């Protein structure tokens, strides 16, 4: 994910590698046949020191985060922020409306008593944290993004069905066309494909 994917006119770093036709290269896409194959290949790619690469699988493979060496997501903090916002909004709204701006007595109860404000405070906290969970997850993932160079590959369409892929991007400092292909082949790839950048 890069900012330039979202904001037009944002300066784009020129691609480091080109095909013989002069098309910029997005990366190398290697296909694997089983979850175990892609798991061990991910460990190999991680140990080779690549930074810009990803595993594509039809479902979350158990333990793939460790095999990829990816860091924990900051999503829980975003959701926590949503929850705090919701709780503060609810408390502020209820006290402002019923204890400050429009005070009226119900059953002789003190308008500042907090007990009656608990249910709505809880509900709004849940509501905003749910929004934060979904939209925070999408934002961190760089979605929605309807076009991606990988979708040019017909094989890649099986990544949501039964195939497993590793894509190493050309912008990775360790990327080297010949060496990376050899490394992926050694890791057990059943097929390796060159992905070009999608042309606007």
């Amino acid at each position, binding site marked *: 994910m890069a900012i330039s994917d979202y904001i037009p006119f944002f300066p784009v770093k020129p691609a480091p590698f080109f095909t013989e036709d002069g098309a910029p290269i997005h990366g190398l896409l290697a296909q694997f046949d089983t979850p175990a194959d892609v798991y061990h290949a991910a460990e190999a790619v991680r140990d080779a020191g690549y930074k810009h690469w990803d595993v594509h699988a039809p479902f979350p493979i158990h333990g793939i985060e460790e095999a990829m060496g990816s860091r924990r997501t900051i999503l829980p903090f975003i959701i926590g922020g949503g929850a705090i916002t919701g709780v503060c909004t609810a408390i502020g709204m209820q006290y402002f409306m019923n204890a400050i701006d429009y005070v009226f007595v119900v059953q002789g109860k003190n308008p500042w008593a907090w007990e009656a404000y608990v249910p709505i405070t809880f509900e709004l906290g849940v509501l905003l944290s749910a929004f934060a969970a*979904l939209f925070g997850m999408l934002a961190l993932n760089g979605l929605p993004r309807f076009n991606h160079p990988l979708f040019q590959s017909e094989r890649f369409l099986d990544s949501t069905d039964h195939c497993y892929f590793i894509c190493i991007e050309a912008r990775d400092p360790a990327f080297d066309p010949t060496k990376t292909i050899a490394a992926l082949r050694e890791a057990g790839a059943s097929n390796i494909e060159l992905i070009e950048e999608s042309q606007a």
Partner: protein
Amino acid sequence: MSPIHPDQKNTERLAGLRPQAAAGTATDIGDGSLIEDPASEPPLVLGGRSIQDVTEIVCGYQEKGPGKWWLPAIMTSASVAGIGQLMILYLIITGVGTWGLNNQVGWAWDITNFVFWIGIGHAGTLISAILCLLKQKWRTAVNRSAEAMTIFAVMCAGIFPGIHVGRIWFIWMIFPIPNSNWIWPNFRSPLLWDVFAVSTYATVSFLFWYMGMIPDFATLRDRADKRLRQGISGLMRLEAPELPFMPRLGFNLPVRSDTLRAYIYGFLALGWRASSRHWHRYENAYLILAGISTPLVLSVHSIVSFDFATSIVPGWHTTIFPPYFVAGAIFGGFAMVLLLLIPARELFANMKDLLTLRHLENMAKILLATGTMVGFAYSMEFFIAWYSGNQYEFEVFAFNRVIPDWMSDRGAPYWWAYWTMIGCNVISPQVFWFRAMRTNPMVIWSVALLVTIGMWFERFVIIVTSLHRAFLPGEWQMFFPTWVDILTFVGTLGLFLTLFLLFMRFLPMFPIAEIKAVMPEGDPHDPRGGAKHDDEGSH
């Protein structure tokens, strides 16, 4: 719709035209029901299915269509829903006097139906959230349809509080919106808590449901895209129904159904590309959503019960109401899941491999457990009415509910409602103590039907029998529903079924990705997931 599949061989095998692969099928894994040995777990997917088969089966329901029964079914249910809409229109034009309400019984079928539907809406989030936190892998077979059912039930529920206010054009006053009267809603009223609880529940359930479907939309998108690239997509075809005296009528539309699929499912999938870095955040978000939905699902029906429990009406003023309502909601919701999925299991090809007897057996056990909890709540309500020494409370239970009017002068004219409730909710699930009953889909379906009826009567008993005889005997009045009452309720049944039929036709009915993740073929440390012997269990 185009019947062509990319992998013709696989399709034929799934349709039973080719013999099944011989690898480890039926003989050694049983029929999918639970087995006595606690150390061995029956598989969640039967029939020796591979990961690819799961995609084919679930996507086949959208791509090939559910079968010939679907169109007549939705036409019927949509007509019933239409009658319900006409009733609502009539009510709005004429006023709530068209219902059978009177001075004594001011809440009747409207609030009964509201609580009935909102209760049904609890199973979905329970299955998704609580069973997710408890790591109950079997939930993957039922969670998507249960979540869909939740949302549709909440939609049906939302109609009733909306229309029962009488002047529906003032319904905006329940929301804290600045207005020219300079007044704000009363946040100390449980009815307002209910507005927030139900709308939060509807929104969060929808987000949960949609988030679960994003990877499956991507699967449907990619399959359509693949067929388009391979040039095997047919044009969309409109055909008249087959009639004996007419030639077959039909014509092609100038658009391929796969083009529509690729655009619509593609839009809904938001460009999901199955990246493991995305999956990591996705699973994290899913787990946290499950964590916050668990107290949410418990809070919603508790707050619904506050509508009654915070009042002083005998029969309503009870502290047991929140847990009692929540148990009843889970009970009624699971009954509705079974009511819908057992016929679906028969109607859809290969669904029995994904929704096995084990799943039905587990849900039957939940029915037994929650039914018994509800039974305990009924008896505890009765006990407290006696133990509290409150005469009005005890009279309500003894003479408004339990003792029939043909046994005592003061007996309850609504005794049949109370005893229907007890028979359906407490007694009928007790058959599930027997294993043979728990594994018989016909028995489970019948009990689920009884429970659904019983749960409607539970709400009727709580609301109408408590109201029809209040403190002054001179005010006592019976409630009789009018045809508008009845047809409005029937209309919501039609609306619910219509929405569920649309769901079964157009959306992925099973969470494809989640099922794959719990299959041994998807485990990198299992030999069936490709692990070699030397690294098995090394991580």
